[in-house]
């Protein structure tokens, strides 16, 4: 399959720039009509929108990765790692971070296809080190 190189990147940058510009227009102005808090964000928004368009139109065609099984599995691992990380603050409402951490490291290790034994070992060692450095030496409550 061929797509235009940077097409998606350019569109994302352009859309982000446009959103920044539109949001910055809602910011108040200084007395006597001088630009205020919205000045810099609106300049950033306009420039990003313009450069996003430039990238879209200057992109070249390139071959993309084929949708083989390995790619699907890698994408899945990536999404799972992000979801796991985002869940930590929610779970932390009930369980202390120090207890969530070994489970998180263990699961990430499994996503990296580390064997069960080594995943257990690395999660235990890392959590112990983190406890020693942050809780015992630096006095941070985890």
């Amino acid at each position, binding site marked *: 399959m061929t797509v235009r190189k940077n097409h998606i*990147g350019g569109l994302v940058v352009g859309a982000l720039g446009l959103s920044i510009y539109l949001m910055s227009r809602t910011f108040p102005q200084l007395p006597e009509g001088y630009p205020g808090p919205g000045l810099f964000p609106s300049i950033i928004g306009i420039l990003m929108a313009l450069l996003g368009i430039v990238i879209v139109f200057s992109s070249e065609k390139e071959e993309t990765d084929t949708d083989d099984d390995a790619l699907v599995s890698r994408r899945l691992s*990536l999404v799972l790692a992000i979801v796991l990380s985002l869940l930590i603050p929610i779970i932390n409402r009930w369980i202390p971070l120090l207890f969530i951490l070994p489970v998180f490291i263990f699961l990430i290790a499994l996503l990296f296809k580390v064997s069960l034994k080594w995943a257990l070992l690395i999660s235990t060692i890392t959590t112990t080190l*983190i406890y020693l450095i942050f809780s015992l030496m630096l006095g941070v409550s985890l």
Partner: protein
Amino acid sequence: MNDFFSWQALLALLLGGFYGSVFGAIPGLTATLAVALFIPVAFFLDPIIALPAIIAISSVAIFAGDVGSTVAKIPGTPASAAYLEELFGLSRKKGPFYGLGLCAMSSATGGIIGTLLLIFLATTMADIARNFSSFEYFWVAVLGLTAGVFASGGSTIKAVISLLLGIFFSTVGIDPTLGYPRFDFGSPDLLGGLNYIVAMIGLFGFSEVLEHLFRPLTMKGEEIELDKSSRSLFFIAPWIQIFKRKWMVLRSALLGVLVGFLPGAGADIGSWVSSSVEKMSGENNDNPEFDDHVVIAGTSSNNAAVASAWIPALALGLPGDTVTAIVLGVFLMKGITPGPLLFEQQPELIWSLYITFIIANLILLPFFGFLTAKLAAKLIKIPMPMLLSAIGGICIVGAYVINHSTFDIWIMVAMGVIAFGLKRGGFPLSQVVLGMVLGPILEQNFMVSAIKSRWDMMSFFERPLALGLMAGTLLIIGVGIWMKKRSLK
């Protein structure tokens, strides 16, 4: 100064050197990542203890990146990729201990030259900066951003976009003129702005975990046996070569200083520029010592750049590379403002920094260099997936401990995802950091200058120092465009 010679500071220096040597030697792990992961610990330490450790980490990690190139033809850091073929070639011919010794001794020499210039230029620049008003600081930020665009080496448009994104991140939270909340989406956690250190951990730490999950590092190198002998090959033989090519060492170190000085460039680019200059110098490739010369040029340049990146960072608050950008963030969070006043208010901090650079280059580099060479074969075989799982956990803890805020974990993850996307799209990351550091300086000084001159824009061009900085910006644009055109031919 007594604090610097305390056992805690010396222990931090030694542990920093060891940590940097292990981290740099493992292919795929960079000096910036090593520093980013250390920051949550450094945050709780006295700056006079944390700073030497950070310098030791970055100086030794840049050298240790050569271990993978020497033993298995796998560069440990982007800087060592610049002379990969030559280093592997000469290590095969003359032995890996000679190759690593040449890297360590050239790095040490370049680092010392960079440090001497750091001591001289930072003080001089700080003296000049004492006369700066908001107009000059505005132009300093413009100059830094402009240099950052052209120092990226890749697409200029993408570098500008990365910078703009970084400046945008810096606008989140209360604005400096009216105290109006911007882009906070109603969340009180965003009112104070995006925490700089948390963002760095996400940009450089968590993004690596995501990157390797998506595209596992395939390390197919050619391995060579480590010979038993060693001390003389490591410590003495390289000096003969370095002495024979002393002018080239000086030229490469000065090039490294120049590149390191540019905001957003750093050791990686310094190494590529110097080794490329040596490769293009017209010397015959059949010369049996050609590989030695390219390696000496690259390695003497990279550590010179590590030191010189601190010149604008200390004197003006402009980060020369990602490591100094991270350290500036720690400084600001600790209430230390870089700039001319730092030299008056915290002279012991400045001197401890200078002394650390000298110790790092004279003692730590050769010592940990030899140790790393001895452990080379084992270090490069440490399985990356296990390390990255641990790094994922450290990123989570690092983001949390800065403010004891679980919200920061979300910010860190979001930054990691953004950095992953940027890397996949070929957008440079160091320019995002530069934008985040220089964005507030640019905006605050522009607004202050504009308001005090009643929005008379000509006032930005009236003061001689401001005009000088503007001329410097135009010069950088001119040279940058010329160099881009030249590289396209």
